[in-house]
């Protein structure tokens, strides 16, 4: 343990990481449970046909949730690479400095 502002800075970086992680989790939950609620309560809406009756709203939205899942992980990875990792590296360098 080093100087106090190091600890304060670490706490700030950790809080930010949890905020980002929990916010993205909330986005995933909204997408997924939104889809489930639509399927459960809006069967007719989900079954509405589009594109000359060749696809339904439900299939489009289901496929969207499947695509959104990896996209969100990439959003997180991008944020972590750009913002989180440098902050952690700086803190680590400080804690290793004599």
């Amino acid at each position, binding site marked *: 343990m080093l100087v106090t502002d190091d600890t304060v800075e670490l706490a700030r970086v950790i809080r930010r990481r949890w905020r980002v992680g929990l916010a993205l989790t909330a986005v995933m939950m909204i997408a997924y449970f939104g889809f489930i609620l639509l399927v459960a309560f809006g069967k007719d809406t989900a079954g509405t046909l589009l594109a000359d009756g060749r696809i339904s709203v439900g299939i489009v939205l289901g496929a969207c949730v499947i695509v959104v899942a990896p996209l969100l*992980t990439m959003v997180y990875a991008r944020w972590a690479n750009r913002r989180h990792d440098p902050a952690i590296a700086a803190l680590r360098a400080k804690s290793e400095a004599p």
Partner: protein
Amino acid sequence: MSEPSGVAVAWFLGFVLVTLGITYWAARKTRSTREYFAAGGSISALQNGFALAGDYMSAASFLGIAGLVATSGFDGLIYSVGWLVGWPVITFLIAEPLRNLGKYTFADVVAYRLRQRPVRIAAAASTLTVVTFYLIAQMVGAGSLIKLMFGLSYNVALVIVGGVMLIYVLFGGMIATTWVQIIKAILLLLGATLLAVLVLAKFDMNPLTLFAAARDQYGAGVMAPGKLVANPLEAISLGIALMFGCAGLPHILMRFYTVPDAKTARRSVAYATSLIGLFYLVTFILGFGASVLVGRKVITAIDPGGNMAAPLLAEVLGGTGFLGFIAAVAFATILAVVAGLTLSGAAALAHDLWGHVVRDGKIEEAEQLKVARVATVGLAVLAIGLGMLFHGQNVAFMVGLAFSIAASANFPALLLSMLWRRFTTRGAVASMVTGTASSLILITLSPTVWKDLLGNAEAIVPLKNPGIITVPLAFIVAIVVSLLSPEPDAATGFDAAQRRMHLGPEA
């Protein structure tokens, strides 16, 4: 369906020979417990991404979801989506801190600043319960599928699966298991994608043309929600168990210890999520393709559950040769999943129970490795025995039960131990015990077990999956018990734990 014997057996033997060769190579590299349980932390992000996908994509999700889509259309998609959405949660919340704080099991993380013994016992109990139910479901499915595809007797099939898996895990540990999972994931994704391309080739390479053909044959209902989601509460309850259960599956969490650092863990789970997402999109095409090109009547005549939809489709589009390849891939798929499960069960027994409870954390390397191998043999025998015991039973609910326990016993304790300073030993133990027990009790009283399996007239609890009750309950118990039993040492230890969780073990 024609007998796929010749080609299928040739493909399968090829897979087994290659993987046994890898096991021989892995066995010479497996000298320490860290190599046995975590492949020495030497797996790359892409390799672990494929291995995670191989650990997770079971024969049930390949054959089962293709079958469900083939026989009931849109409803199959609801399952696919549910199986995928837990992966982003692992990425955002769990993977990196887990990698930095733990060694072999998720209990390492929960117990880090709490009292080792009670936490390890509770975590090992929930891990072994999850692993056992998941194993039973896999083994019973394996026996029936192999019987259907290769014409082998059920018991012979179980002994082959259990025996080959035992060789991988016993001698090659995590290194061999990782490579079996990587090869299986590549074969499964290649096979399924090739099959989907062959399907789409019949429909101008346009999924919409395929859906239209299915609509012409079976009506517009094929693209609308059907019977699966009769009860909205039920759908949400299952959704909660799938989403958070994924982030509490011991054999998945264990894989994050095989990579060198947290950044690699993060990258590997992003790869895995993409691969698994692709797989479910492809499976949806396969299901629709099978319903149009094979026909629902033919599919359900061979297996009422529709499990043979994908193999039958392979036969129609690629002849016996392709059928044989797909059958062998399904076999390989089962082996890879069962190996991962067994290894995580062995880690709970050798590391959590023997290493930390019996030996109090002071254990010789050689002894731990020996205990790990004995545990592996024991679990393999248990898997074969339970597979035989549950022959002919409907075990589909057991995967749902495993997810429910993982979501309620493991996920809340894991998340709170990373996030909440005032989390205590008593809170953790109470939460894990409540999650496991409430899941077991509510499933026993559910329509699936109380009514269908035990033959009672009415279920006592109307929910098939108890996630909507057990997950919030486990969080509430964890929080209330922690607040009622303050543990100053655990709160003090939180700073050091946090430092290590985010800066890495070196800091």
